[in-house]
């Protein structure tokens, strides 16, 4: 009787503690999705009866394919760059004694403040030859005009650089932290076997942090897919129209607020959300990354 009552108390206490989060989860994750889905099936000018016409409208929109292309190309440059640089630099950091790495790690964290609107500000000045500290280097390769750098073909690279610059240092420090949790005995054994510092790094440590790198790539992919701020701001100020409707989120915004078509905008948001959720579920269920986390869950419920 007592045990049954304490079990119930445990459940209720658990629910009470969890309740604020549940409320927020429902209010700001689930409800918006439900509402947006309903709007996406709602009436619009060309499809007054609603239905999936809005989705068709999006897929047929003349800007949709190029936005998909832009974002895909952006991710294709950005993700591998992140993977390689973050892996290499965190491993290199780990080959050196920790106290020497502190100033380096602090330096790598510095760019994290330069994100979003500040990123456009700083990178405009970094790349515009009239202002740039790198103007000399640009001149060497024949780039003397702003339009040579800021044009439609270069946009993918510019945004990739911005995103990379803001995110890489942060992740290098995080992965470096993960490297610290590698048991010393494994490394000792490798050293005994004659592996030098670099062999240890790339043959032993790298596979061990593979999971964390994959997790990083997933997060970077999910946020990269949603890119909006940088292309929007650069097109609304210094180079008007340069990156107009360049990314999928920009297209969604344009459809909603200048195209008077909220239905189509929500349709596009739904599609993008679906892609992100599918990727998330694949990672959770098909890889072993979260298995231990879910496994722990099993132990606890039995106990």
């Amino acid at each position: 009787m007592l045990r049954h009552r304490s079990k119930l108390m445990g459940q209720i206490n658990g629910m009470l503690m969890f309740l604020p989060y549940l409320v927020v989860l429902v209010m700001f994750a689930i409800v918006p999705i439900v509402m947006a889905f309903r709007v996406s099936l709602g009436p619009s000018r060309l499809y007054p009866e609603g239905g999936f016409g809005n989705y068709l409208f999006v897929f047929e929109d003349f800007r949709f394919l190029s936005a998909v292309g832009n974002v895909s190309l952006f991710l294709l440059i950005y993700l591998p760059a992140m993977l390689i640089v973050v892996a290499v630099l965190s491993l290199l950091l780990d080959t050196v004694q920790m106290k020497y790495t502190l100033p380096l790690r602090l330096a790598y964290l510095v760019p994290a403040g330069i994100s979003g609107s500040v990123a456009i500000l700083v990178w405009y000045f970094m790349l515009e030859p009239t202002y740039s500290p790198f103007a000399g280097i640009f001149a060497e390769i024949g780039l003397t005009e702003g339009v040579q750098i800021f044009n439609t073909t270069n946009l993918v690279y510019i945004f990739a650089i911005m995103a990379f610059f803001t995110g890489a240092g942060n992740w290098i420090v995080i992965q470096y932290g993960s490297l610290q949790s590698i048991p010393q005995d494994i490394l000792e054994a490798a050293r005994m076997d004659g592996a030098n510092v670099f062999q240890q790094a790339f043959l032993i440590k790298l596979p061990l942090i593979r999971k964390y790198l994959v997790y990083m790539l997933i997060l970077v992919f999910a946020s990269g897919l949603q890119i909006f701020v940088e292309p929007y701001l650069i097109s609304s100020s210094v180079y008007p129209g340069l990156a107009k409707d360049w990314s999928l989120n920009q297209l969604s915004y344009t459809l909603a607020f200048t195209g008077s078509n909220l239905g189509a905008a929500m349709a596009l948001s739904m599609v993008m959300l679906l892609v992100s959720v599918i990727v998330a579920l694949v990672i959770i269920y098909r890889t072993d990354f979260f298995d231990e986390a879910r496994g722990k869950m099993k132990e606890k419920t039995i106990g």
Partner: protein
Amino acid sequence: MGKSLTARKRPQRVPLTKVKAVSGKAVAWFIMILFAVFSVIPMLWLILAPSKTQVELQRSAPLSFGSFQGYSDAWNNLMVFQDGRIVDWIINSIWYTGVQVLVACTIAILAGYALSATRLPLRKTMLIATLVAMIVPQVAFVLPLFVEISALGIYNTAWAIILPGTFYPFGVFLSYIYFSTTIPSELYEAAKIDGCGDWGTFFRVAVPLSGGLIGMLAFFSFQVNWINFFLPFVVVSSGDVLTLPVGLGILFSSTPALSPQVGANALPIRAPEIALAGMLVAIPILIVFLFSARLLVRGVLAGSVKG
């Protein structure tokens, strides 16, 4: 490598492996330092830019220092925009982010503890939902959130920005991991033996030991909420309710600094002024980051898998 006195007369032959090791290390250091330099230069530029005038920015060396007067001039010019609108933006950013961090972390710690140490029903589902929400960034929800916020009638208020920022699945996940792995089960047992219920255990055992966790939660939450652009941009339209990052965007398109077509004689806001505004956005994050650097080193992710 044995060295005898006689060997000194002949030139020493350094073994190839040692050469490789030394030059390998040199290359490694070179790469690390190069990346560090590139990381720091833009921020350095940003900090030095407001000290110069517009003309100096274009003519003198990019990393040169102008004068301290430059900062106050830039600030005064910024204040001209809509009669000191920038002060509104700063105050808003500070208190919105403050409330968000406070509420989000509290909610996350409670929920994470509930997931890890109580008999919460449907835990597995909740955890999966949290994992999915962790991976999908808030940006994906912004337009749907707009629909909801306008339906709720809080459009164009501070709450339209603050409330969605209290949803912090990553924080829930982190605290779930923390409470499951870092706090030894013996402590929970001891508390139960002493007669503490779930709440007692939470306040007497879990919270006192979660200094590191709270630091990490606050750190990530602050970073994400301070810099947020898309959500405030969409759900708020009055300038005096907006935050600093969005205000910076307004300055881009409304002032000659980055939009020469706006008109050279409209406002005294040029590159130095806008750099100062950018500094105000970037510096708080920088400060928070630098102070929390050691938290990151301890390994944010390590606890979530075999550790």
